[in-house]
């Protein structure tokens, strides 16, 4: 018998990590947008970071597997695109975890994306310096860019502002 509440489902989803950023759960990443439980049926709405994120399908199948494992009879994972995911949704706790992982996070832009893109690299995740520059606005995944810290002379990755 499935006895989870909405809150229980949210807690269960905290166990699912982003396969490409394993320090964050999909809840911390901000991609889980809503959860609703009706008897043993669960509907989860999630949204991709970038449209072509290769980890997205892995997240969807892990959510389904996790909720079935907990006894849900019917699980629907619905993709929604609105409002579009933004790096602004990353909490301070998530930002700190990412920094320790070596992945810099751009400051919140409040919707002024164009300005944020033009403003260049984020602060260095290793030494904290802002004396950084972007060396490639594309990286190893659609959500990352490559930057360089001119103070500690260390290349690093950052999330692209979105």
């Amino acid at each position: 018998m499935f006895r989870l509440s909405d809150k229980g489902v949210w807690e269960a989803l905290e166990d699912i990590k982003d396969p490409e950023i394993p320090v964050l759960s999909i809840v911390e990443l901000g991609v889980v947008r809503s959860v609703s439980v009706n008897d043993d049926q669960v509907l989860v709405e999630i949204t991709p970071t970038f449209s072509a994120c290769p980890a997205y399908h892995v997240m969807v199948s892990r959510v389904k597997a996790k909720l079935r494992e907990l006894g849900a009879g019917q699980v629907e994972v619905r993709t929604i695109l609105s409002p579009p995911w933004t790096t602004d949704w990353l909490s301070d706790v998530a930002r700190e975890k990412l920094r320790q992982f070596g992945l810099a996070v751009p400051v919140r832009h409040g919707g002024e994306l164009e300005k944020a893109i033009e403003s260049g690299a984020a602060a260095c995740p290793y030494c904290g310096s802002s004396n950084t520059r972007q060396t490639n606005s594309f990286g190893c995944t659609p959500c990352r860019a490559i930057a360089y810290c001119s103070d500690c002379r260390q290349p690093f990755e950052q999330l692209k502002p979105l």
Partner: protein
Amino acid sequence: MSTTLDQPLKAAMAARLLEMADDELILAHRDSEWTGHAPILEEDIAFANIAQDELGHALIWYDIRRSLAGDDPDRLVFFRGASEFRNMQMVELPKGDWAFSMVRQFLFDTWEALHIEALEQSRFTPVAEAASKIRKEEMYHLRHTRAWIRRLGLGTEESSRRMQAALDVLWPYHGQILIYPTDYQLLVDESLMPDLTPLSAHWIERIQAELSDANLRLPGSAAVSYTRDHHSPYFPALIEELQQVARIEAEARW
């Protein structure tokens, strides 16, 4: 705003979404041919990312089409005959040299930036929502390809010559933007899709401004007027390669 459509708008919308998705898919395929072959490593990474983004956008449009017409995106991509694709010829031409691929991507990105902005105003909610998502990602593309237009246009005699040669080949194909089926007008009348004539004029103005900053010029050659069911001789081989693996074992799952 509306989340459902009645016939004949539904059929017209499904047809238009197929054109948009096919443009993104075929361009993504041509771009991906540079993976492992781009002039420098950073650019290999960047262009592979751009290809991947375009593939993601194709899937968004195929998915909305599925909600209207019921067809599975994988079936559409891997099991349609070449003559059933509805992409413009501009995106299917062989990748050429680096200048050719950069000019093509720049022309497409500049078009897409304007087109997507217009799609955000669609009264059909799924299209408007998808456009808001795609617009943010596209900012990175245009910024990147504009930089290449200047870098190569203002680079050396050789780079400038190659850029102009690429423009001379590609530009006539821009005419296909304005060739669309008669029922497209139904969508325009209902504010579901944008009127392409002013949009195209705006596009040409922007291209002209960017090119003149890079010491390049828009060729005066006549625009082609092929409909989208007319493909170049290069297209069947592209489709054969794209579908090869899926067709070996149609029922395979992974």
